[in-house]
């Protein structure tokens, strides 16, 4: 098991040329600049491969689906070879007890020297019975696998925030990974799913430099989550000009105006879609004419309709947004003031009459 990453790649049939290409691509994706590509290559050539365990909890597998479609086929090849795919529910060869034994082997043999990647999250209600892996609640497998891990990667919005299964009222009491694992560094890579290039870049960074990329206060790698979709959106000039799509089938929609009024969550969503785009840089939701739904944000399922700019608030019985509630309250206060003024005037006139 003391093979280097490079050995593994060569064994898997990746040419040196392709390998170097991958290094420069990834260095660029990470914002490291071309001069760091050789550093990356050197690290991969000399460092022994670090095993990665990939667990699945409550999820829809969209993270795995995205990951294996990483834009550059090369990237996915390389990454998939780098990962120890001995254990990944979706794509591993083994099954049953044999598979479960692999988790144990990695946890005990590679103590403190493997990465735990988690897709999905553990439900805690009914002792975790809503998600059973190998006859045991997922939360137990998660805790066990994390016990000796060097670091934990929370793939996707499920592991990072809770996602749809944790949306109100959250019957299974699904919680994000950091609510269960407290003693390990956790890197959150939110998105539903996260952008494949972001996933491969994050894991390459960790494996080659053996350290965690710089994280923001919410535990997300700064290099990919420090800006909003809106900050880099190509429709932004229309936003600044005040040109909006007003209805899905209007002329403005055809002209590609800003989708703000159609509920685009770009201004409140931290992700790289407007820079990296999807499917090999082909497009991303806004380019396809639909607003961003904010899938990488905490609690995006509970932020009301995907098609409203202002969130509806449910605490008032009727669902209304802050401005409707505010205007109503102001109207009520205004009416109260008018009534009060009228009574004051009448009373005052009367008392004046009494005095005369």
């Amino acid at each position, binding site marked *: 098991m003391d093979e280097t990453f490079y050995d593994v790649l060569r064994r898997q049939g990746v040419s040196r040329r392709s390998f170097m290409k991958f290094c420069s691509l990834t260095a660029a994706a990470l914002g490291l600049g071309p001069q760091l590509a050789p550093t990356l290559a050197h690290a991969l050539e000399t460092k022994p491969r670090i095993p990665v365990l990939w667990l699945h909890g409550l999820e829809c597998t969209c993270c795995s689906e995205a990951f294996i479609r990483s834009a550059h086929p090369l990237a996915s090849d390389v990454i998939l070879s780098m990962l120890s795919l001995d254990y990944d529910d979706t794509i591993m060869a083994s099954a049953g007890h044999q598979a479960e034994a692999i988790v144990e082997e990695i946890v005990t043999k590679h103590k403190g020297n493997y990465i735990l990647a988690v897709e999905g999250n553990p439900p805690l209600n009914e002792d975790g019975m809503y998600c059973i892996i190998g006859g045991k609640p997922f939360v137990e497998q998660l805790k066990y696998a994390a016990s000796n891990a060097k670091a934990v990667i929370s793939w996707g919005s499920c592991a990072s925030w809770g996602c749809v299964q944790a949306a109100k009222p959250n019957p299974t009491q699904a919680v994000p990974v950091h609510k269960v694992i407290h003693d390990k560094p956790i890197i959150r890579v939110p998105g539903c799913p996260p952008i494949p290039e972001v996933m491969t870049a994050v894991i390459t960074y960790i494996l080659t430099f053996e350290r965690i990329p710089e994280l923001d206060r919410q535990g997300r790698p700064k290099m990919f989550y420090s800006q909003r979709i809106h*900050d880099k959106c190509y429709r932004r000039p229309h936003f*600044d*000009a005040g*040109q909006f799509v007003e209805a899905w089938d209007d002329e403005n929609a055809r002209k590609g105006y800003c989708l703000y009024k159609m509920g685009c969550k770009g201004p409140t969503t931290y992700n790289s879609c407007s820079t990296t785009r999807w499917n090999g840089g082909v497009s991303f939701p806004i380019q396809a004419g639909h607003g961003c739904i904010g899938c990488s944000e905490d609690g995006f399922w509970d932020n009301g309709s995907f098609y409203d700019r202002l*969130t509806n608030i449910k605490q008032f019985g009727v669902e209304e947004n802050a*401005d409707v509630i505010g205007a109503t309250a102001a109207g009520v206060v205004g009416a109260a003031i008018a009534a009060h003024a009228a009574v004051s005037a009448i009373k005052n006139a009367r008392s004046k009459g009494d005095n005369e």
Partner: protein
Amino acid sequence: MVIATDFDPPPPTAPKPNGNGNGFQPAIYVYEFPVRIWHFVNAFAIAALLVSGYFIGSPPPTLSGEASDHFLMGYIRFTHFAAGYILIIGMAARTYWAFVGNKHALEIFAPPILTAKFWDNTWHEFKRYVFLEKEGRKYVCHNPIAVLTMHFMFLWGITFMIFTGLALYGEGTGMGTWQHTLFTSWIIPIFGNSQNLHTFHHLAAWSILIFVMIHVYGAVRDELLGHQSIFSTIVSGYRTFKSPGKPEDMDRA
């Protein structure tokens, strides 16, 4: 009602507050120049912020033509940010003045809520506003209900708006800027996400509008029916009294 014209303000040089024969309290200098200037700058900033803020959330109808011909949302947002900065700088100056200015400048920052008299006056004024009491009492500074609304609705409300506003502004200026480091980085996690933060910023904005309505109505009503000057005071700084007697907060004044 005593009509303002039939009262002669005693000379400001009167030896003792109530000892000048007719029992009228002489005019007292209450709002110093910086407070008066701030009051109006702040009022204009709030008006600009409320209007521009509303249009940021619900933009006006689309403009036709090329994007390069217009910058409407840009100007609306610029108005909001510029007015926001004016309000913040004004609030900072006003807070400083609360400590270096006269005693009245501090009242809305530190209402005298620990005195029984304050609450007795509050109760009295409350009864007056619900028509259970005919006449208001006299105050050099503010009546206690005004103080309470200014302290809780305005000061706390505007503090909330400044913090959330800077946090939202820091989203645009980006990581590494002081707005982001000092505000955005810790305020967004409190609200869970940026969308929720926007929602609360909107709700609090409406509460500021409601404060303005109450504040202006209270001022108009007390100007007409109360026993002391209101409008001329915020313009000239001097409080004059329309009926004889010692103001309630004279000992603090």
